[in-house]
């Protein structure tokens, strides 16, 4: 078997800060070294990963996280390298401030996926965060670069304060997306209510979306349909209360 594999013995309870697990350079770590990395458990302090999970495999730049990680907070925070796969759900703030590499969550993600770390002025600065299920509130908040793609729905205040970058949702997008966005792109393939501070620009076929969607289709097997590739999109510019160079692109059948 190639790559690292971490299987939790039991769900984290209560929610634990996992931001140190994949911090900095981790892709060359042997299982023993990764097992020494700490998980911040409320009431217990820093606990070595190896006490909570079985860590196995050989380093090749990838890692698979099995078991129940739904209470894992800030997993992949500041990620700079490697491909991370979470086989189920994940907790809040997955991929906050990530700068490179990829995180693929097969289940749901909690609030503030790909957003900014606490007190940080910007969120993701690079990399790809893929959530196959639904994503919680403030997904992609303060993004500077990079991609967040959500296979399901996205809750309220998605992309709040986006500086740039792309947030794409296959499902519906919750209330007030893109608030205070400067140059960010929100792509809604499902339903979305356009905020009042966005203004309709045109209906067209954004050429870059074909590239992006084809990548999501081939690399991550996300459910891209022909209508997404060949269809038209309404473009709304905003947030006009901010710089106004951001956009919400909504797929349209007509």
């Amino acid at each position, binding site marked *: 078997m190639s790559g690292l594999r971490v299987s939790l013995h039991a769900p984290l309870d209560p929610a634990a800060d996992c931001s140190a697990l994949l911090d900095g350079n981790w892709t060359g770590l042997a299982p023993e070294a990764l097992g020494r990395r700490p998980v911040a458990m409320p009431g217990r302090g820093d606990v070595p990963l190896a006490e909570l999970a079985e860590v196995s495999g050989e380093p090749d730049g990838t890692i698979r996280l099995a078991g129940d990680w739904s209470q894992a907070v800030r997993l992949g925070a500041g990620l700079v390298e490697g491909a991370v796969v979470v086989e189920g759900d994940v907790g809040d703030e997955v991929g906050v401030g990530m700068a490179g590499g990829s995180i693929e969550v097969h289940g749901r993600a909690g609030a503030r996926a790909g957003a900014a770390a606490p007190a940080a002025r910007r969120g993701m600065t690079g990399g790809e965060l893929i959530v196959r299920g639904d994503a919680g509130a403030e997904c992609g908040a303060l993004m500077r670069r990079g991609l967040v793609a959500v296979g399901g729905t996205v809750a309220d205040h998605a992309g709040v304060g986006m500086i740039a970058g792309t947030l794409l949702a296959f499902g519906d997008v919750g209330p007030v997306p893109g608030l205070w966005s400067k140059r960010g*792109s929100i792509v809604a393939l499902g339903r979305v209510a356009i905020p009042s501070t966005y203004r309709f620009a045109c209906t067209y076929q954004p050429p870059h979306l074909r590239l992006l969607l084809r990548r999501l289709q081939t690399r991550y097997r996300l459910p891209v349909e022909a209508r997404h590739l060949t269809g038209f999109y309404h473009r709304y510019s905003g947030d006009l209360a901010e710089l106004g160079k951001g956009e919400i692109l909504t797929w349209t059948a007509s």
Partner: protein
Amino acid sequence: MNINDVFIEETFAEAFTMRVARVIVTARSPRWVREAALKLTGFATSVIGCKIEAGIERELPERETPDGRPGVSVLLMTMSKDDLPKRLIERIGQTILTCPTTACFDGLPEAPDRLGVGSALRFFGDGFQSSKVIGGERFWRIPVMEGEFLVQEKFGMVKGVGGGNFLILAQSADAALAAAEAAVDAMAGYPGIILPFPGGVVRSGSKVGSRRIKSMIASTNDAFCPTLRAITPSQLPETVNSVLEIVINGTDADAIAGGMRLGIRAACREGVVSISAGNYGGKLGPHHFHLRKIIGGAA
């Protein structure tokens, strides 16, 4: 050596190192791919007068293009590495950016030398341009009246070879042209090569310099002009009344040799007397394509 009673001369084509970029152009339909490609490669036969040599490498089916639309692969080549980015910016800016529905991508993603093309063209957006990083590559979205023009930020550059060639010596102009057309058809789509001249064929092969004007860097190849047979040191057999040249540029010598092999075999047909090649005695170009070795299977 003979092929179909056509004599293959014991000589070689002499070629030069050039710098190459491969540009992928896509568009909504084959019609607009073709229009864009023809403009992009227009007036690009020889660096002698065009500053660049360019040609269509091959048409690309939708499954082979970055955005899943019809496309074409174009090679553009210059003598100096400093010239290539300038020519790319000029040509893509004037012919692809202007052409309806097109997008433009790098076709040499593995090349370590990267040229800022999209990063220069973006300024046409007058501050309204934006970029997206997709799969680790940055693309510029330039707003245009039609919608948006998408162009990759950087294009790869590699060393290539320019000036591979062979000469078709025929009994008549009709026979020379038919043989040249057959050769071009045989080489069409061969990966890694372009034929930068009109229809892939040159009727005005040149020699270095001029007998009369010192400032001229090239002039007619009088040794192969049938009308001058009586008054110059002609290299034409008596039965030859017309000569056409096929010039082949490529990403590497092997590609050129492979293309020449196909082309020469196709050109060896009725009415053709011999196949020769242009060289400068081997003193100028580092790449020598010996016709008989190529026909035998080795470059």
